[in-house]
Every structure is written in C-alpha cells, then in structure tokens.
C-alpha cells in the first residue's frame, strides 16, 4: 500500500513525513548508542578473559555442579573491588555489567528522544520501562 493510495488528507501526510524524518535521526543516534555499548562491553570482557585464562591454568569452577558465584562476583560493589585489584573474573563481570547497561542506556536515551519530540505518552511509557529495569538491576544488590 503506497502512502499516496491510503486516502489520507494532505496534513496527515505531512505529519507522517515529519514524524518519520525526526524518527530517522533518533534512530541513527540510538544505533550508535547500542553499537558502542556492545563494543566497549566486548572489549572489556575480552581483556578480562585474557587475564583470567593467563592466570588460571586450571578451571576455578566445576560447571557440572551448581554452587553459585561468590559475593564479590555478583554484587556491583564486589565487582568494582575485583576490577581495582585487576582480577580477570572481576573485569569480565564489569564487561557483562556494561553489556546489561547497554539496553538500559538505550531506554534512557528514548526518554530523552520522546521528550524532545514532545510525545508525552511515550515519555511515560519509556520512563516506566526504565523504572522496571532499574528495579531489576538494583533490587538484588542491596
């Protein structure tokens, strides 16, 4: 169905065009946020991986039996302390935290973009999604 054949009035047509143009710029920036986030996270994980494999010739974890990670690898405070000590596993976890933060940053960016477009309904929608993400990220890290 072509835009011309929809029987929309001219004003609606112009609105849609303006809307799509605005969205395009926002889309490009959003793509940049996502790509750089993944790249930085992957680089951090890779550096941590090299340190980890170099320092530990024998595996530290028996993956056949679930024990759960120690506190220093599952709380933000613990992970940051491990990173400062330049431990490989701490660096990997930092990279994974950055990775988890990437979609969160994308949602935060959407809040700004919808504010800029004065699309209040979607400001509310994206704030709600952001709040849910923060809840999941911080509820377990007391």
């Amino acid at each position, binding site marked *: 169905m072509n835009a011309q054949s929809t029987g929309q009035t001219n004003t609606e047509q112009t609105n849609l065009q303006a809307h799509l143009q605005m969205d395009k710029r926002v*889309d490009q920036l959003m793509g940049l946020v*996502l*790509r750089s986030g993944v790249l930085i996270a992957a680089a951090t994980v890779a550096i941590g991986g090299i340190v980890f494999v170099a320092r530990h010739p024998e*595996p530290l974890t028996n993956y*056949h039996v679930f024990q759960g*990670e120690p506190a220093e*690898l599952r709380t933000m405070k613990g992970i940051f302390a491990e990173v400062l000590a330049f431990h490989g596993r701490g660096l990997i976890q930092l990279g994974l935290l950055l*990775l988890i933060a990437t979609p*969160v940053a994308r949602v935060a960016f959407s809040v700004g973009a919808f504010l800029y477009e004065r699309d209040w309904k979607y400001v509310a929608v994206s704030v709600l999604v952001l709040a849910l993400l923060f809840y999941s990220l911080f509820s377990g890290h007391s």
Partner: protein
Amino acid sequence: MNTLELTAWIALGSLLAGFLGALTGLGGGVVIVPMLTLLFGVDLRYAIGAALVSVIATSSGAAAAYVRDGYSNIRVGMFLEIATTIGALSGAALALYLRASIIAIIFGVVLLYSAYASFRQQPHATENQAPDKLATWLHMDSAYPTANGLETYHVRRVPLGFLIMYIAGVLSGLLGIGSGAVKVLAMDQAMKLPFKVSTTTSNFMIGVTAAASAGIYLSRGYIDPGLAMPVMLGVLVGSLLGARVLAGAKVKTLRIVFSVVIGALAVEMIYNGIAGKF
C-alpha cells in the same frame, strides 16, 4: 581439560551457534543452553546465565543496524517492552521455584516451537488492515522501506499482542533466551505488522527483555565469568559473521538442517528433563 582448552571449545561452539542462529533467524541463544548442558555437561543454571548474556550482545548488535535502516517500529517496541520486562521479572522469579528438570522440559517445548515457527515464515498481507483505535491513540501506525519505497501500515490488536509479549518475557526470564519466535508471533500474527518490521522490532526488544532478567541472574550468582566470557564473545562474533553471509546466501536448506538439529536437541532436553537428569 585446562582452562584454555575449555574456553576455546566453548568459544568455538558458541561461534557456530551464533553463526547458524543469525543465518537462520532463530538466534544464537536458543542453541547455547542445549549445547552447554547436553554437550559440555554444564549445570542448567550456569548455562541459562551465560546464554542470557549472549542474547543481549547479539540483539543489541543487530538492533543497531536495523534501527538505522528504519525497519524497527520503535513505538511498538517501546510499548511492548512494558509487557516483556514485567514478564522477564516474573520469569526470573519463577526460575527460583521450579525444579531444573521442569525448566528443561519447558525449554524443550519452546525450542520445538521455535524450530517449527522458522518454517512458517511467510509474509502476510499488510494491506487492507483498518486502523485500530488503541493503536492510533498510541501513535503506532508507521511506514517502512520496501522495494516500492516507503509503505505505510496499520497496527492491530494491541491488547492481544501485549499479552503474548508478557508470555515471551516470562519465557525469556525463565529460560535465558530471547524468545524471538514468540515475539514475532505477537507482532506478526496478532498485531499484523509487516514481517520484516516484526522481526527487527523483536530483535530491538530482546536486549531490554534480557537485561531485565540478567540483572537478577547476576545478583543471584548464576552468571559465571569463566563461562559467560567465551559464550558471549563466541556468539557475538558468530552472529556478526552470520549476518554478513546472510546478505547473499540462500539459506533454505540450511534452515531445514538447523531446525532438525534444534528439534533433536529439544527432544533430548525434554527426555532428560523427564528422566530427571538435570
């Protein structure tokens, strides 16, 4: 096996999973869990933690490209993310109470559905869909690039899509997968979005859905750095390669082969679950 060998094998398997996942559109995450549990004997909880992380990496990487090309419907994605994040939180909570064998059986069933759904990828007509009141109020109608230029489309049945998305979120949080197949079901079948828009918007949403449950899995100690590292890097590189090859390749045969492999893995997951081997 020493650390280097173990890491290299897991990275290689993950690379292959990511490559085939991108090539067939099934996603790498869906193969990672059976590969780690059935092949490497990894505990299901560690496997789900590692898969979840790889899902965020591939979906964010791919979403960046699709969003730039103007396929994804950001508003539909954003609105439905309310449903998937709430679902992901419920799924991650549910994972605490369900026995591993039950989770494995549910995983197998979802895997079977994903393999089946990949055959049924036939674009439906997006013309002649009347505007929907709720979708209009939510500014969801949009346009996407096609061979004939921009084509507009109307979004339908938002509440049904929302409900299916909640289920997709629960499955994602419970199983550590992107549940792309269920997300596409919600948008393509229920909401009548064009197929290309459904798949790219699904990809766009997967990262947020997985991030919601990944936070919980991390704080619960399910995400092991030594395992997640080769899985994440392997799947990421594999899916980037797959996406590149996809541009020119005929993937029909490959999709059939891959779906059969996934079907077999699914049956084994279900069998092992029933036999209580998890």
